[in-house]
């Protein structure tokens, strides 16, 4: 109707807006399911968790405003400091898995390698195995008296430790299993990254007389650096959230190595669900989230120095 009574520039603008508006509407419609899910199951609980952390929450609900009490206690709690340290140590150790995965991916990507899919399946199997199964099997393998690891070490004359109950070795043993379990996933990402490196670059490098090591460092590494960065970011986030592996490998009745392996998420679980202090748990969860945000932000800052986007 308005088009007929007012056939000027204004109408044109309105029609253009109309098209744009309709497109936007379509866009919103298409992202709605995800956005809704994210909002209901992610953003809203995060906001609630933040709110809860400023209250006390009884075992059967009932919020009471506490202000900053939970956070004050957080900084006094020795267990929090120790757990943060454990999580940090675990993360540093698990990062060693990245170069290992990259080297293995490079080997698996060789054109001349026979039985390539077999090896890939082999490395990927732990990723699709239930974490519970992984933890239980490794608990047996690492058993101080009857474990296969110590049996094999004994064959070469080394007296193995009680890996999981010695505070000096427990976290290292868990990190080794953590690396092993995530290797397959990282290799898949790296192989994908390697395959998208154009062949002509390798050919050119070869013509220029570069050896395999030079090619790896001068051609391959810069071109897969975005994948390396991606894997590093995900690894750090996952490592800071480690819980199931430690919980399952350490949860025997009484383990002297527990204080030396308890991660921050483990402590969160313990405080919130075993000791029934949900709001204190919420404060721990928030502290962890802030730490992860900072770590990730730092990584994004640093990437400018070493990551090459095409």
């Amino acid at each position: 109707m308005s088009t007929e009574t007012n056939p000027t520039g204004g109408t044109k603008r309105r029609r253009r807006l109309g098209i744009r508006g309709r497109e936007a509407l379509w866009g919103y419609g298409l992202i709605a399911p995800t956005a809704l899910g994210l909002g209901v199951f992610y953003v809203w609980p995060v906001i609630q968790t933040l709110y809860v952390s400023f209250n006390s929450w009884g075992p059967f609900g009932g919020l009471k405003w506490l202000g900053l009490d939970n956070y004050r206690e957080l900084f006094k709690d020795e267990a929090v400091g120790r757990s943060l340290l454990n999580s940090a140590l675990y993360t540093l150790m698990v990062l060693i898995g990245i170069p290992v995965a990259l080297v293995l991916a490079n080997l698996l990507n060789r054109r001349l390698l026979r039985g390539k899919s077999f090896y890939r399946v082999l490395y990927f199997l732990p990723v699709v195995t239930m974490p519970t199964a992984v933890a239980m099997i490794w608990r047996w393998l690492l058993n101080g008296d009857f474990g296969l690891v110590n049996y094999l070490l004994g064959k070469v004359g080394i007296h193995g430790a009680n890996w999981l109950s010695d505070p000096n070795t427990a976290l290292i043993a868990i990190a080794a299993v953590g690396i092993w379990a995530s290797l397959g996933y990282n290799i898949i990402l790296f192989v994908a990254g390697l395959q998208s490196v154009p062949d002509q670059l390798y050919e050119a490098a070869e013509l220029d007389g570069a050896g395999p090591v030079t090619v790896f460092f001068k051609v391959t590494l810069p071109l897969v650096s975005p994948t390396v960065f991606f894997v590093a970011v995900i690894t750090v986030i996952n490592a800071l959230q480690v819980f199931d592996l430690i919980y399952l490998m350490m949860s025997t009745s009484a383990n002297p190595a527990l204080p030396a392996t308890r991660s921050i998420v483990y402590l969160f679980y313990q405080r919130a669900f075993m000791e029934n202090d949900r709001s204190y748990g919420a404060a721990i969860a928030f502290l962890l989230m802030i730490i992860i945000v900072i770590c990730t932000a730092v990584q994004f800052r640093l990437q400018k120095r070493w990551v090459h986007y095409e």
Partner: protein
Amino acid sequence: MPIPRRRTVLGAAAAALAAPALAACGGEGAGGGSKTLRYTLWDQNQYPAMIKAAKEFESQNPGVHISLELVPYGQYWTKLQTAAIGGTAPDVAWMSTLTFQLFAAYDQLLPLSTAANAASIGAANYPPALVEAYAWKGQQYGLPKDYDTIGLWYNKQLFDKAGVRYPDATWTWSDLRDAARKLTDKKAGVHGFAAEMSNQSCYYDFIYQNDGFVISPDRKRSGYDNPRTVEAITFLIDMIKDGSSPSMAEIVDSGSASLFQSGKLAMTYQGSWMTPQFAAVPLLKKYGDVTVMAKGRKRATITNGLGNCVFRTTRNPELAKKFALFMSGKRTGEIQAEAGVVIPGYRGTEKAWLATNKQWQLQSFIDEVPYAVPFPHSINSTAWQDDEQTYLPQAWAGYDDIGDATRKLADAMNLDLRREARTA
């Protein structure tokens, strides 16, 4: 897969940034029809007996349907708490003496009678320590459907080999210690006794046998700074030091029960609930046996037992009470005894349980009832149990001095108990 662009990396990173969400989701409406009772339990092994008993209750009460819900122990308490917050708690549920007070103190349960009037619901037929454990502020909330005590299990073959007299009811702590030394055979990898850091089936028993305590009777103070308590713990750790017990690390890695089952351990304190597991081991079926625990300054055994409790939110309170009493009653006791998994709580029904493994002196577990001590607990027991798990293993493994470890533990536990008193 192409090389990830900056955007993809950012997006994925954002998605992986998870703050564990705590929000509990309340479901809708509890149960189906007005005559359906929801009954929650956690033990797979006892499930068949529970179904059988529930079926009998159904046939005695036409029109009533019992819906059993099996929840794994690992999630049991969290799930019950969440359900209670959301208003979808079951009508009747298994409780343990350890968690009962939490639910009672926060007014989640319906009393079955006043504690003074407990006789009207037949309380005299149950182990008194456990009847008391299910009472709270003058009300009786449940009766034990079963109970357990701890016994001294031993391997006769190893005793014969070492030429040591079998243990019996006359044994004291020094008999236990001396026998443990004689039975230890380093070359064969055999130890005399397992000084395990296991609460119910080891160090709690020693503490109470030595007239010490874990928590004061008014449940306000830790017992870990009590000299008798420390003495009991020292007695145990000394057995590790002199080699007659496997080390902490060995016990953590393998577990005392499996060491016993594989003939590497001559004596061990284990609960009555281990009976079916040990009966499946040919070596123990033939050479194993059990007697009462050795006497310290006095006799004591830690006892625990599950109660059937009714939730306040039930729509059929009278029916739910009737069902809870039935599931702790005589007939259910008989059904449980035949199944042979646990000792039924109702006096007299344990006969069939004793008959399940005639080769052993299972009567020892029942002989211990008169001096049984309820599993030490308070409203929020798990808080200080976590302290035990933090400090005691350090002493057991020899990383920390026993006096220091128990002192630190007493401080931490007292702090938790003060916090508990503040919030409850």
